[in-house]
């Protein structure tokens, strides 16, 4: 047996790749996880995690040099001084925008599991049924009951804190104790409930931050510095959770600096036999072989790997037979919501920095309601007290002003919507063979936009936010909206969707590529619709389910 031969190959080491590596190696498969970027070692390489805000030269801000070097990242909040080296080098890895798409990537071990927002919500049966009911895209080949036990499995291992709210549209999970709402959030919640009764809900966020010690990880210390990497391992990441579990089996090899260029398809067996990689440091090419391959390179790069794996059998790439590979790009559209001022509570504050907020689950187009668009949206928000806001005329400069800066400012409450985006065949990524990245590989071209359904939904997303906050007693409420450019939700999905029919989908009900059954895609690419919940928990559940199936099939000798 060649030293380059394993039982399983996992492409990518982010949330879903880490899960695939853990599940496959725990089930006894000799597994290699290929990561295109550098290694980041848990705790040791979180170089900024223990710095005070004053230790950053520009206090976390962005310099002109950073703005020049990161033409995409600069478009939104991720460009900042504190975790700059967790974001992809855009000069090395450019992409083409036929239409603007804000693609925020992390090319390193752990991927975006290090920087993710950690909000973790189960989908509801409604979400799995929606495509079939609306005649949009393709029907999901699975239903809630197929994923239910895997949600539970993922929650128990990842450690999700949350309250069992009993909200029908937002299934409760196996939670750790919830984080607290602060006094203003509780007040807003009370008024909200008084007005909306059980028609809308206002709950504490469900987040992958552990609130009790778990698997050698320390519970959340309320630093709210998650995206620098957590020295306590308090939030779920590859490094804090799946990687140590996988390494403990003795079955996992991690190979950083390994850019998978293509999956090697064997037309005699009609299966993949392995992958080809370029070593990102030496530019040398290697091949790895395995019985089963999990593609977890993140939705758009997983599609890239498949598209770049063209053969004379599949000229459009592996999994291209349906004509849907690279199509149906989805994200959650956001940048719309409302905020305002809270009166009173001057004698109350909070201690600690909670890396979580409140959540208002979807309520539109449910229970028979029909808006002028389909599907819905949820909101995330929080109440907080600003550090300083003293700008009283008599005190706008000088000694009194200086002292006033150290008094807490006024309370405010704000929230923003996350809207479902429909799968449109027209919203696609393709290989741009006219341009190459640093390694001479073709780059992706984006042709993706929000369309009418999303634009109509955004009107409600702003107006509803204004109305709800006003009803809940928030003062001077102002709504905001924006163009809803996709990508900035950082929830890319849909480019290799699951389905019931090989003619209209790339993957089957077990996340297997129809055209090569030993290739599984279990990241955002697999999604047939986007719902409006943060998707990572669903990727974890799908991955664990697919890995279980893959190993079972290997044992039966059918793979």
């Amino acid at each position, binding site marked *: 047996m060649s030293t380059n031969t394993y039982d399983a190959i996992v492409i990518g080491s982010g949330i879903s790749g880490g899960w695939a590596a853990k599940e496959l190696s725990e089930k006894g498969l000799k597994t290699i996880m290929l990561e295109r970027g550098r290694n980041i070692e848990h705790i040791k390489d979180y170089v900024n995690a223990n710095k*005070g805000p004053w*230790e950053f030269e520009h206090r976390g801000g962005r310099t002109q040099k950073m703005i020049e070097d990161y033409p995409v990242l600069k478009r939104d909040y991720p460009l900042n001084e504190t975790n700059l080296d967790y974001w992809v080098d855009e000069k090395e890895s450019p992409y083409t925008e036929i239409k603007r798409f804000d693609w925020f990537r992390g090319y390193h071990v752990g991927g975006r599991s290090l920087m993710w927002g950690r909000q973790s919500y189960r989908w509801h049966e409604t979400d799995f049924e929606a495509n079939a009911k609306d005649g949009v895209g393709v029907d999901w080949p699975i239903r809630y009951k197929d994923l239910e036990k895997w949600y539970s499995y993922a929650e128990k291992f990842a450690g999700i804190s949350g309250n069992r709210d009993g909200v029908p549209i937002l299934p409760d999970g196996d939670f750790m104790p919830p984080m607290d709402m602060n006094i203003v959030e509780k007040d807003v919640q009370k008024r909200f409930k008084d007005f909306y009764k059980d028609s809308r809900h206002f709950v504490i966020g469900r987040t992958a931050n552990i609130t009790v010690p778990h698997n050698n990880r320390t519970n959340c210390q*309320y630093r709210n510095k998650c995206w620098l990497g957590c020295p306590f391992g308090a939030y779920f990441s590859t490094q804090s959770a799946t990687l140590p579990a996988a390494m403990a089996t003795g079955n996992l090899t991690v190979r950083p600096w390994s850019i998978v260029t293509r999956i090697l398809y064997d037309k005699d067996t009609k299966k993949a036999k392995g992958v080809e990689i370029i070593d990102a440091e030496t530019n040398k090419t290697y091949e790895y072989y395995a019985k089963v391959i999990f593609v977890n390179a993140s939705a758009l790069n997983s599609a890239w790997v498949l598209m770049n794996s063209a053969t004379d059998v599949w000229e459009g790439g592996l999994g291209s037979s349906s004509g849907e590979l690279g199509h149906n790009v989805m994200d959650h559209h956001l940048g719309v919501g409302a905020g305002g001022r809270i009166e009173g509570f001057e004698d*109350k504050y909070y201690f600690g920095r909670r890396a979580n907020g409140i959540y208002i689950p979807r309520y539109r187009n449910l229970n028979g309601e029909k808006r002028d668009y389909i599907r819905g949206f949820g909101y995330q928000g929080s109440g907080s007290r600003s550090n300083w806001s003293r700008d009283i005329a008599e005190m706008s400069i000088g000694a009194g002003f200086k002292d006033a800066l*150290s*008094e807490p400012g006024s309370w405010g409450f704000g929230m923003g919507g996350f809207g479902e985006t429909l799968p449109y065949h027209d919203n696609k990524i393709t290989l741009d063979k006219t341009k190459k990245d640093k390694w001479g590989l073709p780059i992706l071209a984006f042709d993706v936009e929000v369309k009418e359904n999303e634009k109509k939904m955004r009107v409600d997303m702003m107006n509803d936010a204004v109305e709800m906050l006003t009803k809940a007693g928030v003062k001077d409420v102002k709504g905001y909206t924006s163009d809803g450019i996709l990508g900035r939700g950082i929830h890319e999905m849909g480019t290799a969707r699951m389905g019931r029919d090989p003619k209209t989908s790339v993957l089957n009900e077990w996340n297997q590529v129809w055209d090569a059954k030993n290739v599984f895609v279990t990241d955002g690419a697999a999604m047939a619709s986007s719902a409006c919940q943060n998707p990572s928990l669903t990727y974890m559940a799908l991955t664990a389910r697919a890995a279980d199936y893959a190993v079972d099939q290997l044992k039966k000798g059918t793979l």
Partner: protein
Amino acid sequence: MNRRIAIRNMALILGSAAVLPSCLHDNKGKPVVELKYLKLNGEQENLVSNLAETILPKTNTPGAKDLGINLFVFKMIDDCFDQKGQDEFMAGLKEFGDVVDKKYGKSFNELTAAERTAFANDIEKQSKDPNNKDKDAKATGFYWTVKGQTVFGYTTSKYFMTEQIIYELVPGRYNAMFPVKKKAAV
């Protein structure tokens, strides 16, 4: 003695909240901080420093200059402002100086602390007055830039975060209803 401070050492200075040696301030028109893009002479540099000190003066607690906030202001404008922002800053700085000259017959740096405070207060009032807000727009813009960066630098300084407010790197808990004890009346 080389009085020029390499700006790259600033984080260190700011981080330790050191009191800067007084010999730093050179009134002969020679700049004391090294900037990459902004071209400030010593006079202009002192104006910005004096303005920052006017906004956050030394009392029984350190002022902007003690904490090196003036240097932070330079660094932010030099590193983080684009060409247009820097041009506006320079044009505003000039206009600010001219307005003071015209009003007092001397430069901002020559004003007494009380005069500087009065002048800054005038700008605050003027820019909040809808009938008057376009007057000396460049000088006003310059003023708010300096004020914004000064306050940002102060409220994120180690001194402020550890001695004026309670900042703990590792709070360890979340108390959702923490009572506020008012400090001595402001």
